[in-house]
């Protein structure tokens, strides 16, 4: 069911779900541990994606000698 590489949107959506589940307190402890690990992985994934996108744009700007926006 799950794809190899979820898109940024998919990861973000799942992260929100995980946080909501954990905060509801209604999951058994063993499941909670799994969820927490999944949450950590998703958050890392999203951060990497965002950082990657930002640096690609900055590189393009430098490449064409554009000054950063105000």
């Amino acid at each position, binding site marked *: 069911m799950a794809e190899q590489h979820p898109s940024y949107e998919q990861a*973000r959506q799942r992260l929100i779900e995980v*946080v909501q589940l954990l905060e509801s307190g209604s999951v058994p402890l063993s499941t909670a541990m799994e969820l927490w690990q999944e949450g950590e992985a998703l958050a890392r994934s999203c*951060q990497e994606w965002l950082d990657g996108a930002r640096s690609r744009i900055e590189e393009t700007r430098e490449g064409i000698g554009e000054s950063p926006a105000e």
Partner: protein
Amino acid sequence: MPPLSSSPEQPQPLRAVLAATKGWVERLGSVWVSGQLIELKRRSGGVTHFLTLRDPLAEVSVQVTASTQVLDAAGPIAEGMEVVALVRPTVWSRNGSLSFECSDLRASGEGRLLAAIEQRKRMLQAEGLFDRQLKKPLPFLPAAIGLITGQDSAAERDVLEVATDRWPGVRFVTRYAVMQGQGCVEQVRDALAALDREASVDVIVIARGGGSVQDLLPFSDESLVRAVFACRTPVVSAIGHEPDTPILDLVADVRAATPTDAAKRVVPDAADERQRVRQAGTRVRDAMLRLLDREAHGLQAMRSRPVLADPTGALDVHATQLRDLRARATRAAAARVREEAGWVSHTISRVRALSPQATLQRGYAILSGSDGAAVESIAAVAEGDDLLAMIADGTLHARVTHVQRRKETDG
């Protein structure tokens, strides 16, 4: 007419002189004159109107009267036009004033030409040839531009130079034609048809420089105008200078004031476009970075929520519960043990109380036979039997030497 004789002693009466003058002048009769109509005072509701005709070469001008009928019959005329007029000089016999009466007025030469053009214009307009909705938009960047112009003309140079300056890669397909006089209409029409057939030509420019009404006449020709109307490719008219308006200007999809203006309309300016693309790129990048910022902040907020940032919270709860449970279990167990110990202790006391040891210690003995059964009656023994006697601190082996029944009266 014989001269009037007169002398200071025998003067002629004034009326006679006036009459004679009138006769002389009016003998000229009606004459067709050509001139420029420099003033036209048409009074509404009036019967007589006043014109001023001028001879441009001799700087002579004269006032002329004309009736409403004459003016209406003259056709489209306007101040500044060349006209011919049939005029008759008249002298008013009451005061000798001279005036010219016009009984026929027509546009002439250029004036006639302009009037004819005007008429044609109205006819074609009524047919709908100049309708706004029928005008085709010009392509933003044409694959090729068709150009109809005079060979080696200033118009050709202007169009080519300005267009190439704006968009260096521009491609022209040029068809030369004589741009005035004999053959102009046919050549321009043929060039138009050829360029319209050419698939790569996305827009056609017809360009020539300024000239007289006569020079620009072919561009008001009905067949040429209809050919442009029927053309599938959009046509730009760049004929003459700003004030000139041949009919081609009205039927074309775009009217350019000059050949230079036409060049500006058919190709975009490369420098402008590069600028716009650069700006668009900047805006896109700025927008993207703003979007990324928002997302990053959202993610940060998500990550700082306790369930992710400090998951031990949930664990602490369970650990505390576990500690409580163990404590309770321990307490419960200890309580049970105490309970049991109490019972055991109590029971031991009772047992001890029931034990025969105390009796034995008072000097009694428990006798049992060799079968181990306790001797409770003298009937169970006979003289000479071996008995065991259990006393407080040990066991005796005894033999019955004598049996004596107890009497009830014995203590």
